[in-house]
Structures are given as structure tokens and as C-alpha cells.
């Protein structure tokens, strides 16, 4: 019954991890015929930001990143508005301390949690758990938390930490299926009249710009026992390795679809993209959620010292 605030503490960090705006790694563009494993490695690199150096998503005039989630369909009724959170993120993917892999910081910019900040430090030694510090503005207190589990749901949405961050290629068996052409529009949240407000009305509609692109189709079967899904089918851009659509199956029944509108950041490497929006729909109960990052909020290569990623900054930003 009581889960408390662990997931909340890191949700924004997770979003940051999704973006490509992190530590730049050496990852040559693949050549020739690729195996399923090689494709999945590329996707992992793209979605986990191994291709760029650093960046931030900051409020720009009235534009700001937001996450919107709606209750399962049977609990949705007039008057019940989607839950909206707006936020800013700052990432340092190139810290001076070589033991540290990356540092990210996120700050809630609206609502009752306004000013709440999260600082997450991941280590180069992957066997070591990351350290997360949460700044609680009204308590004027910083608390350290542990990492979430794969199956934990993310900030009240229908996405899990495993899907977004923690799952690595070796956690699944991969099988390459015949290539295809992506012919659909990407889904987006369809709001009821009573769900539209000045925040949700900014959510983008379905994206049809990826139609006609050639995609790899990969079937990935989990190695975890008694897992929430048996396998998923992914459709991956053959040029950018952007993962447009993932459909999860349990007992051969479709249970969830996650679609991502990856957009170019106009870099030399075509794989450098950012998720303009992520839309996830659970087929079993109709629950859906959407994360939207306006392009105008994305800032690259800021000149900030490592000390910027600290409790002091959180306290300063979060002071009430």
C-alpha cells in the first residue's frame, strides 16, 4: 500500500537518461549485415545517450518538458484530469572524476512539488549502484535513496524503469525478423474535452513523419522468469537506430505498446536523436501516458563546473 516516494525521486533522472544528451562514447557507425544483437546494442547506445557529450532541458519562455499520465480507462470520468508534471534537467556526462560515469540533476518546476530536486550519480563500475539524492524543499532536507527495480513503474505512468533505463541487451534473447517498412503514424494521447488544459493542449498529435522508413524488426524474449511480458517486437530505424515502436506480448496477447517520436538534433552522426515524445498505451486497461520534450527546451554543451551538480544547487533552486 505504501510505496512512498522512491520512484518520484528518480523519474526525471530517468527521462534524462533517455535523452542522447549525455557522455559521448566512441561507437562507430555499424557497417554491413547486422545481427539482432548488434542492432539491439546500437539501439541501447542511441536510447541511452552514448553518442553526445552533455545537455540540459530548461524552461524556454512558456515551453517546458512535461510528463502526462492518465488513469486506466474504467477509472477515467469527467472531472478527472490527467496528472501533469513539468521539469528541467541538467546532465554532466563528462565529469572530471573518472570513477563517476555521469551526473544528472532534475528540478520540478510546478505544482505542489515545485522546487523538489534530484541529483543522481552513476559510477563507472557498473557493479556499483548509483547514488541518488533528493532535495525536499519544504523540509529543507536532502535524502539519499536506492535505485528502483526493473519492474517498478515510472512516476505513476504505465512505463517501467526496466523499459526506460535499466534493461540491458543481455537481459533478453534477440531474434531478427524480416525487415519491413514503417507505414503507420505514431500514436499520441487522445484527450477528452475535460482533460484539456493549458498544459495538456500543448501535447503533440500523432506523428506521421516516419512513414515509409525502413525498419529492422527484432523479437526479444526476456530471460527473467515469471516476468510481466514474454517477449516484445521492436521496429527500429535502419539508419538512425531509433526505436519507433515496441509491442509487448504475454501469452501471445498484445499487452502494451510504446511509441517514440525520435527527432534529429542536426548532428553529423544520424544516430544522434532525441525523443520528442514517448507515448505508452496498456491494452489490458487502456491506461496511457505521454512524455513531451519541446525542442526549444533543449540546450547543448553548457559551460558549467562539476560542482554545479550538488546539493547546494538543489537547495538554491528549491528554496521556498
Amino acid at each position, binding site marked *: *500500500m505504501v510505496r512512498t516516494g522512491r520512484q518520484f525521486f528518480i523519474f526525471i533522472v530517468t527521462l534524462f537518461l533517455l535523452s542522447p544528451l549525455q557522455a559521448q562514447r566512441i561507437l562507430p557507425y555499424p557497417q554491413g549485415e547486422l545481427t539482432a544483437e548488434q542492432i539491439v546494442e546500437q539501439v541501447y547506445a542511441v536510447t541511452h545517450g552514448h553518442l553526445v557529450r552533455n545537455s540540459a532541458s530548461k524552461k524556454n519562455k512558456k515551453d517546458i518538458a512535461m510528463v502526462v499520465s492518465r488513469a486506466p480507462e474504467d477509472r477515467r470520468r469527467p472531472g478527472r484530469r490527467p496528472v501533469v508534471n513539468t521539469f528541467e534537467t541538467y546532465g554532466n556526462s563528462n565529469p572530471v572524476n573518472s570513477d563517476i560515469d555521469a551526473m544528472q540533476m532534475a528540478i520540478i518546476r510546478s505544482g505542489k512539488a515545485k522546487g523538489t530536486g534530484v541529483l543522481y550519480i552513476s559510477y563507472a563500475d557498473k557493479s556499483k549502484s548509483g547514488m541518488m539524492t533528493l532535495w525536499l524543499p519544504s523540509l*529543507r532536507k536532502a535524502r539519499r535513496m536506492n535505485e528502483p527495480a526493473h519492474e517498478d*513503474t515510472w512516476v505513476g505512468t504505465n512505463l517501467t524503469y526496466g523499459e526506460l533505463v535499466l534493461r540491458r541487451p543481455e537481459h533478453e534473447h534477440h531474434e531478427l525478423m524480416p525487415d519491413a517498412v514503417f507505414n503507420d503514424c505514431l500514436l499520441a494521447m487522445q484527450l477528452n474535452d475535460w482533460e484539456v488544459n*493549458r498544459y495538456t*493542449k500543448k501535447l503533440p498529435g500523432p506523428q506521421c513523419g516516419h512513414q515509409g522508413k525502413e525498419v529492422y524488426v527484432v523479437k526479444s524474449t526476456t530471460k527473467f522468469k515469471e516476468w510481466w511480458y514474454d517477449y516484445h517486437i521492436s521496429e527500429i530505424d535502419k539508419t538512425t537506430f531509433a526505436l519507433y515502436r515496441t509491442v509487448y506480448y504475454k501469452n501471445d496477447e498484445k499487452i502494451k505498446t510504446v511509441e517514440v517520436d525520435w527527432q534529429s538534433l542536426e548532428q553529423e552522426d544520424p544516430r544522434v536523436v532525441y525523443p520528442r515524445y514517448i507515448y505508452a498505451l496498456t491494452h489490458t486497461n487502456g491506461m496511457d501516458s505521454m512524455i513531451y520534450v519541446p525542442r526549444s527546451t533543449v540546450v547543448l554543451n553548457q559551460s558549467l563546473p562539476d560542482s554545479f551538480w550538488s546539493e547546494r544547487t538543489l537547495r538554491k533552486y528549491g528554496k521556498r
Partner: protein
Amino acid sequence: MASAEQENPEATAREGNTAADRYARFVLRYRWAVIGFIFFFTLLGAWYIKDVNLRNDPDSLLPLSNRYIATNLYNEYHYGMGNIMVWGAKVKQGDIYQPWFIQMMDELYHDVSQLDFANADNFIGISSSKLRHLGLTEEGSLDFKRLIPASGLSDDPLQQKQQVEFLKNGLQKHPVLEPLLLYYENDAGERCDLLDENGVISNQSIAYAHQQCTPKATFIVGDFSNELKEHHLAWIAAVNDLLREYEQRYADRVEFQISGEPYFLASMVQEVWDKAWLFGISLAIVLLVLWYEFKHWNCSVFPLLGVSMTIVLTLGLMGFTQFKLTTMMVLTPMLLLAIGIGHAMQVTRRFVQELHRTKNAETAAYEAIRHTIVPASLSIGTDLHGFFAISFVDISFYKAYAYFGIFGMSTLILTTTTLIPLLMTIVPPKMDIQEEEKNWEKPMGMAIAALLTSKFKWIPLALVFAVLWVSAHYAELGRGISALLAGEEGRSDVEVARIQDEFDIMPGVEKGIHYPRAAFKDRYWLGELMGDEEVRPIKDLNTLSEMMAGTITANLVIRSRKGVLPPCGEDSRDENGDRIIGPDRCYDELEDPAQGIFNDAEVVKALSDFENWLRQHPNVGYSTSYIQFIKTLNMMLNAPEGEAPMEHMNLFEIPVESHLRANRYAYEDPEDPEYLPDPDSTVQLYNAMLISSTDAGELDSFVNTSTWDEGVIVGFIKTMDPVQTHQTIVDIQNYLEQHKFDPGMSEIRVGIEAGEKVEIQLDDGVGIITTEESITDGKAAIGGFLGITEATRDVAFAEWLHAPAMTSVTVFLMSAIMFRSWTIAFVLICLCYITLMSQYGLAGYMTSIKEWSANLAFHVQVALSIAMGLGIDYGVYMVSRLREEMQKNGLNWQQALQDTLSSTGSAIVISVVVLLGSVIPLMNTMLANTWSVSLYIAEALILDVLTALMFLPLLIYWFKPRFIFKANEKC
């Protein structure tokens, strides 16, 4: 019934022109059409039987406008958890922390949450994703890992051991779920409570349970959707199969228990089908009685066929109308069988008499129909009184009894009085049938007549007074009258005040309901014969009641008095995005100060105090609410860095100013010594964190996360004793009354109020109901099964005198009109009241021995009216026959009485034998509701027969009504 015999055959002829004559001629002339018509509709009815909507839903029994019911439905619609199930598993050796046991519970949790109609998100158990470690990692960070990995325990024994140890530590540090999910037992086998005597979880109370007691059992709490009610049989079969499988696998190591509202209701439906074969026994008994009476198969089979057609027609109508029925409705076919056979016997007997006299089946049929149609109609008319009276009571199954009872009784005119003679003309009985005079009928008549005309005639009178005295004794009529006469001075005594307020003239008769015992008996005779006398639903419920915090819930819906501003629409800003409608008129959730009572620390603190009080109540085992989330988060986030939160249970509190000051060590800011957090901001931060950190909908069972202006506190009630449940309701209402002006409490209201329009879930979508005032002084309405129990008690109090009174008025008027004699009507109604008083006495006795399957709960009260309507028949037959015999015997009372008792009296006795045979199925299932209703009806009818045979003649003789004692006066 016996009225058929009062006609003089010689006075009738085929050319008669009364309505009865014309009817007889008509049906004989068009016999094939009539037979075809009846068979056609019977077949049509048979087709619709499959659609009978036997659903057993307590929510649909009572008026939806009742505030308790409306509150419960509102709670179910907005917060769910309306169909809660519990599975318990108690380990026989050692404690629950054995890998095989944990694996088994993990598997069971998975299996039960996969059952049809399961709301898996709402399930709670040690395998639930909701169950998290509330402690520290080795590095000192706060840790919230799942207590059991999602993929279950590892196969590696060493890792498995570590996982079980982690689970144990985690459970022992969980202040919210440990008391709900674990059962601790001391060496004496007694339950160890995790709450102290003040209802509070303290370091001491936890230490006692953890150190002095052994965790022996754990539970899975599940929730199912309302669709289950449409598929009871398939669902209960799956539930029982699953449990059976686990019991077979772990019989030597684990005791399993199962309970919950869906289980009870579905088991009742299943029991009806499982014991349907008992209905065959009833039919066999009836067939034997008919054979004994007529000694010919035609005369035995046709009456049974006719009554069976009435039953089929009635069941078909139930299916066609899709009326929501309960298992109580199995009484209807039984009553139709019992009553219908009486009518069938009368017409068959008359046919046989006429056949012997005329040697012509055609004429015999004509005579039989025209002689019996009028008395049969009158008799059925009186039978209908009981049903007619209860049709006005706003309880769905009362109405179902009434509507289908009236329909079924009415069809008897066609299926027995008409159809049987018509069939006899087609397949007549053999002419060698002798109309035998039974060797017991005349002696019985002579013996009773002798008794009633001798000096021993005072014996029946004394017996009647004895019955009344014993009944008054058990009903505590004297105490009730004394309390009513005590006036204002006596009201200092709470019980006297209650009796006066509720006009409870018989306080020894409990009118409240113990729902499980009203549903099932604790043991039953047929079960004892089969070596399985214990009724599992009751046995398991009793066991779980001893182990768990509580087995029924009290749902307290908390809403604000003030309400909240509407969300800002797009018109609240201009084209530049600047606000043009201010925060005084609409609410921007990301910009404006938080609104809603659950964002107000003072209100949340008041609710916390209320919940603490609730937990201290002797009948409340535990409670849960959104308040517990806030308190847990406060403790987790403010325990000093590096120290286990559970070592700071003093921080398990709402952070209002007094608490912050008293626990400054936990809240102070080293950089600003004067600083203390703002209570409202802190609570609002916790709310924001909780909504963002839980699964979607996880908080929806406790608080409205859209408005933050309403929520629910769920209390787990330890008792279902009707007296104690009522007292619990009264205590909660009194607390709320006493504290309604306290800080925080003045902002809230509890339950649905009178005159509100509220949305609820109906079968065909969402509907709106308007509530009516149904609680004295407008006190708080409480939902959950406790609320339903109280609503049921309220309805019972409204009806326990009212419904029989209404029935008696119609019976009195009908009798007076029928006999044109106030004296006769008075005598008959006296007999009714004797029977009624004896039923109250029976209820008082059942209350005194705490037999909650048969106290005067609302479902039993229906028997009072029905029995009154049916029971008056015997008096009517006796009075009719006495008049006829008095005329025939020249006003010779002795002879007239003897002849009446020999003829009508014997027919009445046979009718009662048939009735008792008919109720065999009702008396020998596990079901308590049908058992209790048939018990009351059987008791009443037996007493009715005895008073009709032995007391009514005395009253007639003493009052000497002109209707009987004056010669040549027509009835």
C-alpha cells in the same frame, strides 16, 4: 380447500347459469384449446428458466436511496474494493518464514489474481508489488525494494535464505501492512496484536509480537469486479478448484481458509444447484401423500403435473423479467408446491366423488370445476394477502416474493382447479376406485370434538396462554413495555432511550442481521448424515475472524463541506497566456496554492486522530487510509540520516505544528535554527510525491487524486454480532457528532447526506440516485458491509411490526367481507395474532441462544406476512364448514363440530403434511436464509392448524356469531 365439499351436488346441474357454471362449461367445451394454451405457456416459461437472474447481491436488496446504501455504492463507484476476498494460510509447523511456504504464497497470490473478474491491481499480500522494504541499504540510503522479487524466490538455497530473511525484516518494519497481513500467535495459541491497547502501533507493541510470538499465518486480500455477480457459478467453481488443488498439495503442512462477500454469495447460488435433488425428495413425498389419498396414479400424477406447471410458469416469468433474485427465492417454488397441492387435492377429490356418483368423467369434471372454482379463488385470495402486503415494502426481494408469489398463486386456478379435471376427462381414472374413508379421520374428529365439548376444553385455552406467555417471555415484552412507559425520566438509561426511540416493544427480539449467519448455518443435519456437518464458509470465517484484524469493513467517506474551485478552462487566459480569471474563481493545479482538504494539514491531522480513536474501539481490529501513507512518508523522510525509520515511530505522525515543535530534532534546519517546515506545504509535498511514486490508480482506493477533497477511511470490523455492529455504528456516529466543531473536523462531512444526487454504478452503466433521510438526527452514513448491516437493521425495525400489521388489516377486512361478520373476522385475526406472537417468541428464543441464522432479521420478517396470509386459510375453511354443518345438523353444535373436524380438519392435517414435506429442501441445505424462513412458516402453519382445530371452535362457541349460529342465513 375444504370449501369445495360444502356444496350440495344435488343442487347443481349442467344447465346452471352462475359464473362458475359458465366457466366450467366454457373450459370443457374448449378443453383442447385450454390445455394447449396452458402447455404452450408452460413450455415458453420453461424456455426462459435459463435466464433466471439469481445473483444474490446485498446492494440490490435494499432501497438505493437509503443513506447507508448510497454511501456504500458511492464508495464502490469512486474507490472500488466492493467485492473483497480473503485467502488465509496458516502453517502447521514453525513460522511462515520457510522458503517452501513463501514460494507457495507467491504462487497462490499469482493464481488468485489471475481468477476471472480479479482487479489484480488492488490485491494485497506478501507478494504484492505494494509491499516494500521501508528501511536502509547497507550504504545507509533509504531502501524501498520489493520484499519478494517479482520473479519469485531464487532457486539457489543460499540466496533463497537471504531473500526470506529480507522479507522477514521488511515485514517487521512495515507499520501499515504487517498488522493487516500477518497473524502472530503466542505459545498458548492466542493471537498477538501488533497494536497496543490504545490502538496505536508503538515500539513496545511491535517488540512484544516480534519477540514473544510466532508469525503463523498470512493472508491475501483480493478485489473483484461487479461482473462477477453475473457469473457466480463458473467463478465459484474456479475458486474452489484452485483451493482444492492447494489443499491437496499442502494438506499436511498448511491450513487454508477462504472468505469474502463474493465467495459467500457465489457459494449460496452454488448450494442451491448442488442441493436441487432435494426438491425431488419433496416431490416424492407429495406423490406418496397423493397416492395415499387417492390410490390411483392418474389422481397422483395430474395434481403434481399441474403444480409443476405453475412452478415452471413462475420460474419462466422470473427469467423473462430478469428480476434480480436472491437464493431466498427458492422458497417460492416450495410454497407454490405446498399451497398448490392443497388446491389440487381438493379438485381431484371432488372429481373422484362426482365420478363415483355419476359414472361419467365429463359430468364429474363439470361438477368438480364449478364447485371448486369459487372457494379456490377465495382461498387463493386470502393466500395473496400476505404477498400483497409485502409488495409495498421497498426491499427488492420482498417485492420479488410478492410479485412472483401473486403470479404463481393466481396460475393455480388454471393449472390445478381447471387443468386437472380436463386431463381427467381425457385420461380418466379407473371406475373401481373406492372413495375410502380413512381410518384416522373420523376418530380424530370425534376425539377433538369430545375434548372441546367437555370440561377439558380449558386445556387448549391454557395451551394458547402458555404459548403467549413463553413468547412474551423470550421477546421480553415486559421490558419493552416498561421502557416505553418510563417516559422522559427513564431516558437516562441508554437502553430505555433506545427502546423509546425505536419503539422496540420486544427488545428480546434482535432485528439486526449477522449477514454470514443469515446466509449459512454453522452446521446442518444433512451434512451430519454425510459426515461433513461443518459449513465451510462459516467455519473459515470464524477462523479468519480470530486471526485477522477484521472480516468486514466500515467505509467512511470523507468529503469537504466547502468543496473546491473548478479547474481553469482555456478561457481563463488571454491569447498571450496571461491569467484573466483569477484564483478566486478557478483553480490552476500547477500554479495556484493547493486546494482540497487532503492538502490541509489540520484536516489531515483531525482525520488521523479520528482514525486513532477508531482503532481503539473494541470492535475495530484495524483501519487503513491515505493518512497512513502520509504518516509513513513523514517517518521515512525525517528519521535522522543513517538511522532506521522504524526506530522513530514517534515520527509516524502528521507534521502539524505541535508535532514539529515536539520533535524538533527531526525537522530542524542546521543552517537556520529557527526554521520549522510549514505543515500545509509539507503535507502537499508528500501528496505530490505519493501521486508520482505510486502505480496509476494505486491511491485511488483511498483518496480522490483529482480534487484532493475527498477520501475514505476503511475500518476493519472484528465482529458481525448484530448487537455489536449496531453499537459500533452508534459509537462512530457519536464521535463524529461530538467532534464536528473541532479544528479540521469542522471542514469535513462523513458519508452521503439526505437529498444528495450521487453517481453510482448500475448494471447498465452509471446512474444517479437521490438519497432520502434514513438516519435519526441526520447522523453520519457509513458504507462498507458495516453500513449495509446497519441499513438492514433500520429496514427491519421499520417493518417488523408494520408489515404484519398491514397484512392483518387486509386479512381482517377480507374476512369481514367474505363472511359478512365482524365477529368472525375478529376471531380469525385473533388466531393470526396468536401465531404472530409465537413467531416473535421464536425469534426471541433464537436471539437468546445467539442463533443468528434465525433471529428476526429482515429476511426472516417476510415469513411473518406470508405465514399470516397462508395460515388464515385454515380458519376460513373451518368457519365455512362449521356453518354448513350447523345448517345441515339443525344447529347441533356437537355433531357439526365432529363432522367438520372429520372432513375439513383431516384435509387440513394432510395439507400440513404436504407442506412439511415441501420444506425439506429448504431445511436441509447449508443455506440459513431459506432454513429460517421455512422454519418460521412451518412453525406458524403448525400452530395455525392446532388453533384452527382446537381453539377456533371454542371462540366460535363462546362468541356465537350469527353467521354460524343462525339458521337459513346465507353466507
